[in-house]
């Protein structure tokens, strides 16, 4: 990572934050602290506020009450800190840009106004393309890619941003197994570089097995901690309500359908 002098304390702190979307309150007084380099799965039913939380972290939504601290400073102080991987439906795949162009956008935060990409930026883009195994697609228009390749492009762009915090919105839905594997490997790689990763997902098994922390949301923080602590029958029922099927009063089956049109 480029930032050798990371300001400490290295954590993401959400303190009594309330968020609203289109005037409707979505999340009320949520608080939690994520140490740097943690891998967190964000789960909860549709409308729980997962996307809203991400939008606030990215700076798209104003924080109505409470505060978000990054490295102990208010969010927005360091502008290259947060990278966001959008859901694939949010991208205009007909836009006239190539894979290389999109990944280079990841460097714009490091370039600043009126500056052209430097050799160091081009080298970084080449490295990220290689790491995501799409170097041969660099000149391809983004509209000609398969679903898995499209996902890799945005993973490569996030990598090129050299973020401290990476937000991924539903990266495991609608992609092939190989891409899912690449994304998971990327998570491990990022953890070795002390990048904090928040991933929203509907795959509760994946959340339980591949992430050391789970944030269970439903308009508020239901539970936050390791999977064994979070996935208890009470928590599950609180989060998913009537969509939970209780067996022997112990194990719960959750019917959590993915991504309806908002």
């Amino acid at each position, binding site marked *: 990572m480029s930032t050798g002098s990371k300001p400490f304390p290295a954590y993401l702190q959400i303190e009594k934050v309330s968020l609203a979307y289109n005037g409707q309150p979505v999340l009320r007084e949520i608080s939690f602290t994520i140490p740097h380099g943690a891998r967190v799965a964000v789960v909860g039913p549709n409308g729980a506020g997962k996307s809203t939380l991400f939008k606030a972290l*990215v*700076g798209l939504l104003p924080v109505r009450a409470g505060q978000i601290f990054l490295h102990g400073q208010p969010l*927005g102080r360091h502008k290259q800190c947060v990278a*966001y991987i*959008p859901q694939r439906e949010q991208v*205009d795949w007909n*836009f*006239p*840009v190539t894979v290389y162009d999109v990944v280079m956008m990841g460097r714009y935060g490091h370039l600043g106004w009126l500056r052209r990409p430097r050799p160091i930026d081009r080298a970084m883009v080449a490295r990220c393309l290689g790491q995501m195994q799409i170097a041969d697609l660099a000149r391809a228009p983004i509209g*000609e890619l398969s679903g898995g390749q499209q996902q890799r492009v945005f993973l490569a762009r996030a990598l090129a941003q050299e973020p401290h915090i990476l937000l991924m919105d539903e990266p495991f839905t609608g992609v092939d197994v190989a891409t899912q594997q690449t994304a998971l490997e990327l998570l491990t790689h990022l953890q070795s570089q002390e990048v904090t990763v928040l991933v929203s997902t509907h795959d509760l098994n994946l959340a339980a097995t591949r992430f050391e922390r789970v944030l269970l949301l439903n308009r508020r923080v239901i539970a936050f901690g390791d999977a064994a602590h979070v996935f208890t029958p009470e928590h599950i029922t609180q989060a998913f309500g009537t969509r939970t099927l209780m067996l022997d009063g112990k194990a719960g089956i959750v019917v959590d359908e993915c991504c309806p049109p908002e």
Partner: protein
Amino acid sequence: MDWILTPLTYEFMQRGLLASLMVGVICAVVGCYVVLRSMAFMGDALAHAILPGVAIAYLLKGDMLIGALVAAILVALGIGFLSRQGTIKEDTAIGILFAGALALGVALISTIKTYALDLTHILFGNVLGVSVSDLWLTAILGLIVLTTIVLLYKEFLVISFDPVLAATLRLPTELLRNILLILLALTIVVSLQTVGIGLVAAMLVTPGATAFLLTRRLPTMMVIAALIGAFSSIAGLYASFYINVASGAVVVLIATAIFLLAFLFAPTRGIVWRARREHKEVIDLAQT
């Protein structure tokens, strides 16, 4: 070759060609963002909204281009203001201001008894009446527009392609969008003399849309659009010289014809190519 050189012996044709060429290129380059950001209606509205500016400038005996520029910028920012409140949608705001400004323009012009201000020249341009000072103004405004587009390439690309990334990078999205609107207003004012406010929307949208069919990279799209804009402008002016038809109309007709050709025959995106590919896939499927 005489047919190319003959029109050039007239000074008004030299000036007209130079003006058309510049306007064709400026419109086409700005038009790429108009196409990609779905701002065609906004462009058309801005063009009509400058009419009251022209009329007021005339009544105050000021420069009509400056009047047009002020009106266009006011309306552009007004649309942003009305729709930002969230109470009405942007296209509704455009529709209201567009019609209101046009009505104000027509009302003002109808009070001018002399009719020295020729409405048809404003509506459809008067490329053969371009003066040397008009040429200079076009060149300077055009240079400002193109330089801004080159300098803010990264920023305009990000706010157009990925508003979320723009927010992550903490780009001043609102300011950049207003700058783009002002560039659009400048472009329309510059086009006033050649194609007029009635047809400027075509010069903004058609070359960009054609280039969109032919390439998959923004810089190339801008170059191709500029070439199409330049070619249509010059060919249109020559055609109007020889067959004596309103020049602005011929320019737009040529650009439209090029678009239709691209729409049919463009590699990968044209409908003929796509139909052939689908046909082939059906045959391949049948054979397996």
